[in-house]
C-alpha cells in the first residue's frame, strides 16, 4: 500500500530535488562568474581608489613631511591651515574664472558642432571623426603645441606671424598679465580637446529625437530654425544638456595638465590641483596638508555637483 504511494511520489520528489540542485548549481555558477568578471575591478578599485582615499584621510590628520607613514598627530590643524591659506583660496578663485569661461563655451560650441554635423548630408563619418579626434589627443601634447608653436611669444610664433601680416606687434601670450592673454591660450586648448567629446553626446541625443515631432511642428506652422530649435530640440536635449554641464564643471575642477604645462605653477593661475600637486608631490612633499586640501576639494566638488543637479533637475524624468 505504501509502495505505490512511494513510487508515485518518487519522480516528483526526485524531480524537485534535481531542479533545486540545478538551480543551486546555476546560482553558484552565476556567483562564480560574477566574481570572475567583477573581482579584478573590485580589487583594483579597493587598492587604487578606496585604500588611497582612506590613507589620505588618515594622512590629513598628521604632520606628514616627506613621509607617507607619519607619526605626529595634529588633529584638524591641516584643515585649518588649508582653509586659511590664501594661496589655496585664490586657487579656488582661479578655478572659478576658468569654469566661467570654459563651461558655457564648451556647451555652446559642442552643441553647435553637433547641430551642424547632424545636418551634414555628405561625408558624415568624416565630419564626426574630425571633430571627435582631438579627444584622443593628450593634454600634454596639445599644451606643448599650443605653447611652442601656436602661441609662441616670439615673432615667429604662429599667432604672432599671422598678426604680423596685419602689422600687430608680437604678443607674449603666456607671459602677459595685462591683458591676461594666457586665458585665451588655456581656454582654447581645452576647448579644442574636449568639445568633440561633448559633441558626440549631443549628437546621440539629437538622433534620438523623433522626427515626427518636427513634422508635427511644421504642420502647426512652426518655422524651421530658431523657433523649432527653441521649442522642440532644446527641451528634448535637456537631460543631455544637464549631463554635459555637470561633466564639464567636474572636468574643469580637475584642470591640471594644461595649466601645469603651459604656465607651471605661477601664483596668478594656479587651479586647485596644481596647487595641491605643488604642495604635496612637488618639492615641498607635505602630504598632510595635501591630503587635507584634496579632501576639502573633493567635498566641494561633491556639494556643488549635488546642488547643480538639484537646481537643473538632474535625474528628473523628462517630460
Amino acid at each position, binding site marked *: 500500500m505504501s509502495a505505490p504511494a512511494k513510487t508515485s511520489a518518487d519522480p516528483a520528489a526526485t524531480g524537485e530535488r534535481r531542479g533545486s540542485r540545478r538551480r543551486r548549481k546555476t546560482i553558484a555558477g552565476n556567483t562564480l562568474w560574477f566574481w570572475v568578471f567583477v573581482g579584478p575591478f573590485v580589487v583594483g*578599485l579597493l587598492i*587604487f*581608489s*578606496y585604500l*588611497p*582615499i582612506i*590613507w*589620505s*584621510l588618515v*594622512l590629513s590628520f598628521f604632520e606628514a*613631511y*616627506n*613621509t*607617507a607613514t607619519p607619526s605626529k598627530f595634529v588633529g584638524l590643524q591641516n584643515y585649518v591651515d588649508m582653509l586659511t591659506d*590664501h*594661496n589655496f583660496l585664490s586657487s579656488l578663485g582661479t578655478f572659478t574664472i576658468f569654469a566661467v569661461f570654459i563651461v558655457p563655451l564648451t556647451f555652446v560650441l559642442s552643441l553647435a558642432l553637433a547641430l551642424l554635423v547632424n545636418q551634414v548630408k555628405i561625408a558624415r563619418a568624416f565630419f564626426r571623426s574630425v571633430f571627435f579626434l582631438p579627444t584622443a589627443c593628450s593634454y600634454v601634447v596639445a599644451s606643448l603645441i599650443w605653447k611652442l608653436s601656436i*602661441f*609662441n*611669444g*616670439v*615673432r615667429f610664433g604662429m599667432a604672432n606671424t599671422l598678426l604680423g601680416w596685419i602689422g600687430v606687434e608680437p*604678443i*607674449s*601670450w*603666456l*607671459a*602677459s*598679465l595685462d591683458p591676461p592673454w594666457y586665458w585665451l591660450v588655456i581656454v582654447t586648448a581645452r576647448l579644442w580637446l574636449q568639445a568633440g567629446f561633448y559633441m558626440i553626446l549631443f549628437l*546621440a*541625443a539629437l*538622433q*534620438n529625437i523623433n522626427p515626427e515631432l518636427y513634422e508635427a511642428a511644421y504642420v502647426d506652422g512652426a518655422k524651421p530654425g530658431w523657433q523649432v530649435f527653441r521649442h522642440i530640440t532644446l527641451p528634448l536635449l535637456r*537631460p*543631455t544638456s544637464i*549631463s554635459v554641464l555637470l*561633466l564639464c564643471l*567636474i572636468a574643469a575642477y*580637475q584642470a591640471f595638465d594644461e595649466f601645469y604645462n603651459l604656465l607651471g605653477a*605661477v601664483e*596668478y593661475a594656479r587651479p586647485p*590641483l596644481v596647487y*595641491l*600637486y605643488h604642495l604635496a*608631490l*612637488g618639492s*615641498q*612633499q*607635505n*602630504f598632510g596638508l595635501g*591630503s587635507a586640501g*584634496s579632501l576639502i*576639494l*573633493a567635498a566641494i*566638488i*561633491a556639494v556643488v*555637483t549635488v546642488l547643480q543637479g538639484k537646481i537643473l533637475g*538632474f*535625474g528628473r*524624468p*523628462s517630460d
Partner: protein
Amino acid sequence: MPAHVPNAGLSRRDLLKRTGGLAALAAFTAACGGNTGRPSSGGGSGGSKPNLSQWFHQYGETGTQQAALKYAKAYPDANVAVQWTPGDYDAKLASGLLSSKGPDVFEGHFNISMVKSNQVVPLDDIMADVKDDFQPGDLATNTLDGKIYGVRMIIDPQVIYYKKSLLDKAGIKPPETIDDLISAAKELTTNKVKGIFVGNDGGNVMGGPALYSSGGEYLTKDNKPGFTGDRAAQAFGKLHELYASKSILLGAPTDWWDPTAINQGLVAMQFIGMWAVPGMQKALGDDIGVIPFPKLDAQAKPAVYSGGWTQFVSAKSANVDAAKKFVKWLWIDKSEYQEDWSLNYGFHIPPRKSLAAKASKLQSGVAADTVKLTQDYGYTDNPAWTPKMGTAFTDLLTNVIKKGADPAAEITKAEKTVNGELSRLFG
C-alpha cells in the same frame, strides 16, 4: 525617458572615480616606485657586487649622459645604474626618497628638511681628508649642525652675458647698477631684438641676486627673514620696472637656462649660468661679455648666485656604505672624471680648489671673467631655506614683478610663511 540619455549612473560613477583618483594622487606616488634604475640583482657578470642606483637630472649639454654612464661603468666595486631624468627632477626625486626603491646616490640641492626627514646620511668620514680643498661657501651650503651631508659636484655661477658688439654700437658701457641695466635694456631694444632675456616668467630667477645686491639675504645668520626692509623692497621694485619697460623677451620657446635666445639674436643680453659659455662661444665667437647682477646703488655690491649640484647618499639605501664608497671614488678620488664633468660639456667651476686652479679652459676670456666675479661676489644657498620658503619667495616675486603689487605688502605676506616654517624647524 529616452534611452539615449547618459544618465545619473555615468556621472555619479565618474564623479566617484575621479574624486577617488584625486585623493589617490596624494598617497600613492609613495607606493608606485616603478623603475628604480637599479640593475636587477644576480644578473650577468656582477657576481657578488652590490647594486647601486644613481639619479641625475637631465643636463642640457650633449655628451653629459654618456659621460655619467661611462663613470658608472668604470666603477669596479659595484654595479651602478644611472637614471637620467628629463622633466620635473625635484618632484621625482622627492617621491623616490620616500622609500628604499629610490636612488642610493643622487644629485640635488641641500636643505634642512632632508635631514629632518632622515633622507640623507652625513658624509664627514669621506670628506675628512679633503675638506680644506673645497671653498668655504660650498661646504657651508651642505652643512647642518656641524655635519657635512653632500659632496659638491659642480659650481654654477649665474650672471648676465651680453653681446659686446651690440653694446658698442649703441655706445653703452656694461651696466654697473640696476638702473643702468634697465636703461641699457631699453636702449638695446629694437623691433627685432629685445634688450634682455631673464626667463619667460619675467625675471623670478633674478629675485635672489637682486636681494643680495641690495645688501639683503634670504635668512640672516640667526635664521630670521633677511629679505625684508626698504632696500629689499626697492630691489624687487626695480625688477618690476625692468619687466614693465617692455624691453625683456617673453614667451620664448626655451627658458633662461638655455642660450638659444641670445645665440639666435633675439636679445642683446641674457641672464644665464656659466654652463652655457661653450654653447654661446660656438654661436657668437668672442662677441660675449659678462657682468654680475648689478648693485642696487653705491651702498651695495653686485651679486652672483653660486649655484650648482651636490651628490648625496640616501639614508634609505640598502647599501649605504657601498654608496658612500662610490661617491668618494667618483667625486673625491677620480679627479680626471671631475675635470671631465666640469669642463668638457658645459662650463662649471670645479669645487675642488686644486682642480679649479688647473682648469685651463676657465683661465681665459669670458669664462675667466665669470670665475673672477664668482670669487668676488658669489653667494651660496642657506640650508635652512626650505622649498616652502622658496615658493613663498617666488610668489612674492611673481606678484611684484608681473602684477606690480606693492613690494612691502608682498614681503609681509612671504615673511609670515617663512616665520611659520622657521618656528616649525627651530621652535
